């Protein structure tokens, strides 16, 4: 196993050479970001169908992974929210929001409780631990990814 790992690391190190050649982006004073407000605004917009906000808040790279593994791009997900098959979200409450920031990317984790149903009336509610990724583009924080995971400890 060791020779394989060393080989892999050697490849990585070769790739690391150009990486080290890069200059760091100029440091800018970090403006305080109200991550919890961002998280709540995001979810409120999903609930109320504020598509104008979501269109701007979702980066073009946005990808949503639902708890069953179904994956949607920004275009696909906004298309669902705009269309007749949009889910009805009665309530969506994020709790225990935690932030892990790494420069121009931040990972928000939260425990979200959803009550609602899909267009056919099937229950889509539950308790989820959610992994959210936001990136800073041109000075603006945007959502680029979500992975939902059912909180099985609650079952």
């Amino acid at each position, binding site marked *: 196993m060791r020779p394989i790992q060393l080989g892999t690391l050697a490849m990585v190190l070769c790739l*690391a050479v*150009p*990486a080290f050649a890069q200059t760091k982006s100029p440091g800018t004073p970090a403006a305080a970001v109200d991550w919890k407000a961002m998280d709540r605004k995001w979810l409120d917009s999903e609930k109320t169908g504020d598509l104008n906000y979501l269109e701007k808040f979702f980066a073009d790279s946005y990808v949503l992974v639902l708890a069953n593994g179904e994956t949607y791009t920004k275009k696909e997900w906004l298309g669902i929210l705009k269309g007749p098959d949009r889910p009805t979200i009665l309530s969506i409450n994020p709790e225990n929001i935690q932030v892990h920031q790494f420069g121009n990317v931040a990972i928000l984790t939260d425990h979200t409780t959803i009550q609602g149903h899909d267009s056919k009336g099937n229950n889509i509610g539950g308790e989820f631990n959610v*992994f959210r990724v936001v*990136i800073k583009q041109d000075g603006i924080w945007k959502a680029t990814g979500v992975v939902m995971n059912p909180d099985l*400890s609650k079952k």
Partner: protein
Amino acid sequence: MKHAYCLSVTILLIAASGVVALAQAPGRMAGEDVATTVSILDHVWLDAAHNHDGETADWLFAHDFVEIHPGGVLVNKRQQVDMIKDTKLGDIAIQSTDIQVRYASPDVAVLTDTTTIRGTQGESNYSGQYRVMRVFAKQNGRWRAAGAGLARLPTQ
């Protein structure tokens, strides 16, 4: 053996850093292929998990690393590294396919893949397929894994 391994990696890193320091030019990108780099790091990550290689995981994971495991359990870097290096938890076979780099910038990359796991660790049976989102961030000139979220795919 482990000391020799770490020493080799350290020497290579120092050598690479030295070469690159000479090559740096302000405001200029070095044409790094971020997508390729993080795709390889994706495999390094899974190899470390498969081989109980806690040292490589510790090298790869950022200090504030976070992962959501299947079932919704959140773990930090220390917990994840401890799980990886604990041989008593049992072996798991891990393979990733369909790696898609969703976002790449000079200091951030987000990718998704389909990870297939076979085996159990402790009392948890992880066997199955997962849609995984992995986040990488460049810190002090080096790419590190910042976090991952997994969603289990339905059994077919």
